[in-house]
């Protein structure tokens, strides 16, 4: 059985911008694969290339063994896409939207209506089936958009920021639905800027920065180098690593991933109190100091050189935030 997604030397350029710079990766059948990176890293372009909404300048894409560049329509039968914005039709009801999406994949009337009813019940939208999509809440819209993506039972589902812009309860439901879909055997390709979400859901993760994959592995393997490392994050009125700090604590490594945040790392437990006292004595107000458990966020920061929090804020400022 071939891998679900095989990408080799994929490249795409928009004028002078190299959006995707010759990336190579594969996703196994039945895998939940996370694709992480900051805004403008090339995530959406990659999804567009994989789903046939854009044409690559170079490289190849195989979905379920089908060469997408040669037989894009055949490959589109295998995939479902849940875009980052709910793009169903506001004038149609929930069940009409699902039936319409089923018809786009050639499903017969009886089959698509039965499938629509089944999905509406599964996603807890049965009571809203006859209501117009335009009147749905954000969480309901997101759930129906996911349902529309799987109406034709695709082998591979692309999810672009599935929990962005919805409330906590709905996001939890959506995560549960994603996990259930994966358990049922669907291959999932997930982009998200919520690193904890990727850590909780995904089996393997790729980090993309400036169109290049800078790290790709299973969550366990990605976390391994951090075992035995101790880290503390201090929030306060900082705009860089204060002068004299590194000299005062020679066993510790300091970094300021973004203004207002200081990261301290060591091979043994960090004595936070001494560092905080040092800062306060120099007039720096400390709002919070917390120990960080080894997390994917740490890995992300190490691999990409970017702050996860900064990425989240950047995404929210771009209009995708909760």
């Amino acid at each position: 059985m071939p891998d679900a997604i095989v990408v080799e030397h994929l490249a795409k350029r928009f004028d002078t911008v190299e959006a995707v710079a010759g990336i190579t990766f594969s996703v196994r059948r039945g895998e939940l694969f996370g694709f992480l990176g900051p805004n403008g890293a090339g995530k959406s372009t990659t999804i567009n290339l994989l789903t046939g909404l854009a044409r690559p300048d170079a490289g190849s894409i195989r979905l379920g063994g089908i060469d997408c560049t040669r037989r894009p329509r055949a490959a589109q039968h295998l995939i479902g896409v849940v875009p980052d914005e709910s793009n169903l039709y506001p004038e149609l009801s929930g069940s009409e939207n699902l039936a319409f999406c089923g018809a786009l994949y050639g499903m017969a009337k009886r089959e698509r209506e039965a499938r629509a009813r089944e999905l509406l019940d599964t996603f807890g939208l049965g009571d809203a089936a006859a209501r117009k999509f335009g009147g749905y809440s954000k969480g309901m819209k997101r759930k129906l958009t996911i349902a529309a993506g799987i109406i034709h039972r695709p082998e591979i589902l692309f999810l672009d920021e599935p929990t962005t812009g919805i409330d906590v309860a709905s996001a939890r439901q959506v995560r549960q639905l994603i996990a259930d879909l994966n358990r049922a055997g669907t291959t999932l390709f997930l982009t998200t800027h919520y690193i904890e979400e990727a850590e909780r859901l995904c089996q393997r993760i790729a980090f993309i920065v400036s169109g290049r994959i800078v790290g790709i592995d299973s969550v366990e393997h990605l976390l391994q180098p951090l075992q035995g490392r101790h880290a503390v994050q201090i929030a306060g009125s900082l705009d860089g690593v204060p002068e004299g700090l590194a000299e005062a604590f020679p066993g510790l490594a300091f970094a300021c991933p973004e203004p207002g945040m200081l990261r301290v790392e060591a091979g043994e437990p960090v004595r936070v109190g001494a560092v905080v006292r040092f800062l306060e004595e120099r007039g720096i107000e400390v709002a919070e100091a917390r120990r960080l458990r080894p997390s994917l966020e740490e890995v992300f920061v190490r691999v990409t050189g970017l702050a996860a929090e900064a990425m989240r804020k950047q995404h929210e400022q771009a209009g995708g935030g909760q």
Partner: protein
Amino acid sequence: MKGWIAFWAILRKDVRTYYLKPPNISWGLIFPLAWTGMFFIRTGGGVEDILSLLPGVAAISILFGTTSMLAITVTFEKKGRSFERLLLAPIPLELLMLAKTAGAILFGVANACVPVIMAAFLADLSTVAWGGFAAAVFLVSVASTFLGLFIAVAVSEVFEAQTFSNFFRFPMIFLCGLFFPVENLPMLLQPLAWLLPLTYGADALHGAVHGGNRLPVALDLLILCAYCAGLFALSLFNIRRRWIA
């Protein structure tokens, strides 16, 4: 077969969502009425002039009806990203765009029926060659729809589509021989008139309603077919170049 399920679903959805909306139906009725009234008042004509006005009013109703709707069914959906859902469907782009334009073609034909029905109450239409008239109405509707598609694909905002449409529509009304014969135009403008698809549609409609066509109706219809094919191919080329780039 599966492609045709998608085709019918898109057509039915568009007809329901856009074309059967009361504002569009009333617009389709009011527009031809307004044009007919305007020409009657301007020319001071009576019911005996209906046959000479009918081709022009029918063609303008089609032209404005179809080109206006494409800005919504294509440009608006592209802007709102629901068009992406259609592009992701495993159907050929040609079939997809035929489905998206079929509603507008039917809307154009329906718009042309309004002045015909009105004229039937006021004038003797027994001399009209209905076969040629129907073929001309259909092809004018297809050509206008594909012109609307070409415009809708060339822009990214609905208001741009409307403005850009007028750039084509208004000169066409006066140049294509609907109300003034092409021979009466200044010599400089006459070649331009023969470059417009509606000129051949107008000629065929005049021929079918009251005679006096410059070219054989069959040739008019053939040239219209060529324009339809050309505009559709150009629109598909632009979609591939701009939207699936």
